[in-house]
Every structure is written in C-alpha cells, then in structure tokens.
C-alpha cells in the first residue's frame, strides 16, 4: 500500500460527485491510495497555503474539512501526496468565457492580447486557483485542476446567453480560451483539465444527463451526478497511476 501513488481529491461541493462515483463502483480506483479533503465553497474563504500545506484559518473550518476526510486531516500537506486533484474549488471558467463571448458579440473589438490578459487575470484572481497554485509551488505533489463544470443546459434560464452571434463564437473561440488557461496554469505548475467533451452541449453548457437528480426542481444547475464524477475521477486516477511525483512547471 505504501508504494501506491497517493491521490487526494481536494475540492468544494463539486468533489462530491467523484466520491459518489467511487461509492457506486463506477471507477476502478485500484492502484492508488485515494483520499478526499474538501468542504462547501463558502469555507474556501477561510483557507490559505502556508508551509507547504492548505491550512484552514480557524478551528471551525478545520473541523469541517476534517469531517469528510478518512484520516481526519485538519490541513492538507502537499508533500504527503503524489497527485492532488483540485476539483471545482470555486474555480469558474464559464463566467470568464461568457464575459469574453458577449464582449466579442457586442463589441468593441477585443484584441487577442486582451483576451489572454482577461483569462489570465480571471483565473489567477480566483481564490481556489491560488490555493492550487500554492500547492503546486511546493514542488512536491503534482497538481491537477478541474474547474467547476459549465452550467447545466436550460434554454429558459440561459436564453440570453445564446444570442445569435454567440454559438458561432463558442465554436471558434472556446477551444482557444481553454488552451490559454492551460498555458497560464502550466506557468504556475498546474495541469488544468478541460471539461470532458462528451459532457458538453451547445458548446458552453453541461448536458443535463450529467446534472444532479431533479436539478430543475432544485434549481441546481451547478452540481453533477456520479456519471460526471466518474469521468473526472477516472481521469485523475489514470493520471495518478501514470505520472506520480512529477510536478508540472513548464515556464521556468
């Protein structure tokens, strides 16, 4: 057991679907030592990276995170893992993409340099991302990051998003947006993972097949089900098995 790659899923409520996938046996997690450390997004304001670990700022927050960790960890030391997969963690790309697409559709002209700057600042400005970057900066664990998935498709709720020019822009631009975010993250030693293509519909939404049960009634367009969690967890497990102990830092 000691020789197995140690994988930690660190996230906000968006990491729950990964656990559900594991519990339901949708993913083969053999060959890794899997651990979860996380809590609701609101508590992420009370976290900081210090001395190579994510530390809660207060006892209450520490207990909340420890509650759902099998080892009762009050903090998350990067060096005790080979791979840390930051999941959700209040890192949103949808809003960034939508701001850019709307700007491109409405004008004025947005240069590619400014697009990169908006994406860079928008990613690095998110507290959850900075936690991931702080972990990566330790140079110990390999840090993967899956941002919060796109909102679940709902024509009524997101009708304005699909203004006439937007779908074409989504096709043209969103792949490049992801590529820029990947480059920025790589500069910070993070491997950013795109939302799996098969879960995306209309270019900028998550297929309702991956939404939590009763998402319309619950008005929950953010959380995902075990099927989605399985895709993310499977990817993380495979990467942990393949490349443990090789932090990503490309821009030195």
């Amino acid at each position, binding site marked *: 057991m000691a020789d197995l790659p140690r994988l930690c899923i660190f996230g906000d409520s968006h990491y729950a*679907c990964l656990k559900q996938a594991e519990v339901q046996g949708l993913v083969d997690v053999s060959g890794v030592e899997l651990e979860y450390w996380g809590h609701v997004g609101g508590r992420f304001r009370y976290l900081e990276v210090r001395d190579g670990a994510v530390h809660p700022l207060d006892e209450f927050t520490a207990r909340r995170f420890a509650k759902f960790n099998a080892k009762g960890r009050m903090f998350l030391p990067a060096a005790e893992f080979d791979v840390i997969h930051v999941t959700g963690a209040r890192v949103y790309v949808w809003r960034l993409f939508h701001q850019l697409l709307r700007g491109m559709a409405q004008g004025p002209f947005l240069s590619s340099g*400014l697009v990169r700057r908006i994406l860079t600042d928008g990613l690095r400005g998110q*507290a959850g991302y900075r936690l991931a970057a702080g972990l990566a900066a330790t140079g110990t664990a390999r840090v993967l990051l899956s941002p919060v998935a796109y909102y679940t498709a709902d024509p009524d709720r997101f009708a304005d998003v699909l203004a006439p020019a937007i779908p074409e822009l989504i096709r043209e631009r969103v792949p490049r947006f992801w590529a820029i975010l990947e480059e920025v993250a790589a500069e910070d030693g993070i491997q950013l993972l795109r939302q799996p293509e098969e879960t995306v519909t209309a270019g900028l939404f998550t297929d309702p097949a991956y939404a939590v049960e009763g998402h319309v009634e619950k008005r929950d367009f953010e959380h995902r089900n075990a099927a989605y969690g399985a895709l993310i967890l499977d990817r993380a497990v495979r990467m942990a098995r393949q490349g443990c102990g090789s932090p990503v830092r490309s821009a030195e």
Partner: protein
Amino acid sequence: MTHPYQTLPEDRFWRTAVAERDALEITGLWKPKHAIARRTRIVTAGSCFAQHFSRALLARRYRWLDFEPGPAGLTPEQRKDYHYGTFSFRTGNIYTPKMLLQWLTWALTEAEPPGEVWEKDGRFYDPFRPGVEPGGFASAEELWTSRRDTLRAIAEAVRGSHVFVFTMGLTEAWQDRATGVEYAVCPGTVAGQFDAGRHVFVNHGFGALMGDMTAALRLMFRANRRLIVLLTVSPVPLTATASGSHVLTATSHSKSLLRAVASELVATQARVDYFPSYEIITHPAYKGRFFAPNLRSVLPEGVDHVMAQFFRDQAAAFGGEVAVAPAPVPAVAAVEEVPEPELTEAEELRCEEEILAAFAPGQRDG
C-alpha cells in the same frame, strides 16, 4: 489719467501679484472665455499631462467623457494597462499639432491612415500609438480593426462634446520622408526599424505648428459648430532631443513655440482658450516645487494645485461653487482582490447536501 498703468488692477503688477505673495496664493492666472460647468461634456487628448485633467474632472464629478471605454467588464488594472480611459479615446499620447491633425483627418474625413505597421518579435505595433497594446497586436488585421474603433471614437468625441481639451507636448517628431506622415515616436525605439533614408527628424517651427493647429481646429469646428477648444502646454520637459541642442534649451525652444501658438490662437479664434497649467508648474515663481527630484515628473500636489486653479478661475469668472476638494478616488482592485460572488443560503445548503449525500448519506436527513 496720467498713463494707462495707473488704473490697472494689482494682478498686472509683478510686485503685488507675484513677488509679495506666497506662490500658492497667486491667483487669477486664467481669465476663461467660456464657462465649464459640471454638465459640460468634456473630452481630453494630447500629451501625457492631459491625463491629469480627466482624473481631476472625474474626481470633482465633472462630465468627462470616454468615447472608447473598451470592452465591458475590464478591471481598472486592465483598463490602465491597455490605455483605455487615459484619454477620451485610445490614441495614447498625441504630442504634436501635426499628430492631432492626422488623427482628426483620418477620423473626420475620407482619408485613410497609412497601412504601415511596425513589427517586433512577431508582434505588430501601431506607428501612431505604439504603446496602447502591451506586447503589441497579434496581427496587422487586429491592429487595423482596433484602430478603426479609435477613429470612430475620435469622431464621436469631436461631434459629441462641448469642450475639447488638448495638451500640446512637443515640437520634435519623426516623419516618413516620402509621405510626411508623422509617427508617435521615433521608429526603432518601441518597435519597427529605423531607416535613416526613410525616416526624417522634424522640429516644427512656429508657422508649421500654427498651420497644423489651425487645420485641426478647422476640422473640429466643421464637425461641431458649438465646440470649444481649451489648449494647454505640457510642463513636462523633453525626455531626449534629436535637435542637436542641449535637452534643456531644446525643451525651452519647444515649449516656447507651443506656448506662443496657444496665445496666438486664443487671440485670433473666439472658440479657443488657453489654460496656463504650464506656467503654474514651470514658472520660477513656484521655485520648482511641483517637480519630482528628476525635475521632469510632475508631483501630485502640482497637479492638484493646477486643477484647483482651474476650478477657482472658472468660479471667479462665471460664479458658482469652487470645486476644489477632489472626491476620494476608488482604490484599484489588485488581481488578488478580485471579488468572488458569495454563496446564497440556498446555494450553500445545496452544496452541503451534495457533500452529505456522497460522504455521509446517513446524516442527510439529520
């Protein structure tokens, strides 16, 4: 009356107006021709000192207009770095009357700007505003598309404002020898390649400066019959001179000509006025107190004093409240301070539910 000086007010005499006063008590330097009220639609352009004008106007809740504010949702830092909101349109600094005339010609007539672009390390720079896009544009097409937005904004600014403030900065410039088109900076400094056979130094004389400014004013007044133009001269000395003179005397030469042009235009054109920010910063009466130790950068207290005089002289001429106390300027949000939306109670509950369902299903209903 024995002679005309006998009845003049005290501000016409050096002793009473200057020598016997603390410099900060010198008043009435400007006798404005036109009232500028809070509702007056004001635009600004020109040399770097012009950007202080817009900040001061905004701080006092005057109606400074930005005709090229850039894409929605930019942070203050992004706007600053990409030169949105520095002037009323994204030209960067316009140093000379000739440059102003070029921009106005391209914006207000059928004339097209030259297709010339400057390349550096695979990036593309606009020869007429090379500093506005950090790192340059990705392609010449991007550059031209962006410039079209700027030309549209200039046209809207001229047509849609009441007061056009223009700060003249330099007489020295570099031009294309064949076309006479003037660049914002010397080719090869920011980008592009200097070619001694193609690029020629010019130091505009009084006649040329007057000609260019007069032509620029004609274009503006033709586009907007109600427009007032307020000229200032930048007090910031030259960074460097290619004139062959010492940079100090070259600065005097340049600023003196621009100052003379301003006075000549004020004297001959009813809709042109001059505000003496140049004198307030540079005159020996102020003993250089408004300059930083490099004797070039203007200190914030200098800008404050200049703008206080602006509003005081307006109030003295046209009545009304003196807008001297700047409103607090909102702090610029740093990247690490990007606000994140708070979770609502319902959202937080949903998040808890998801975690409980996954990790502690037994507690879900408890």
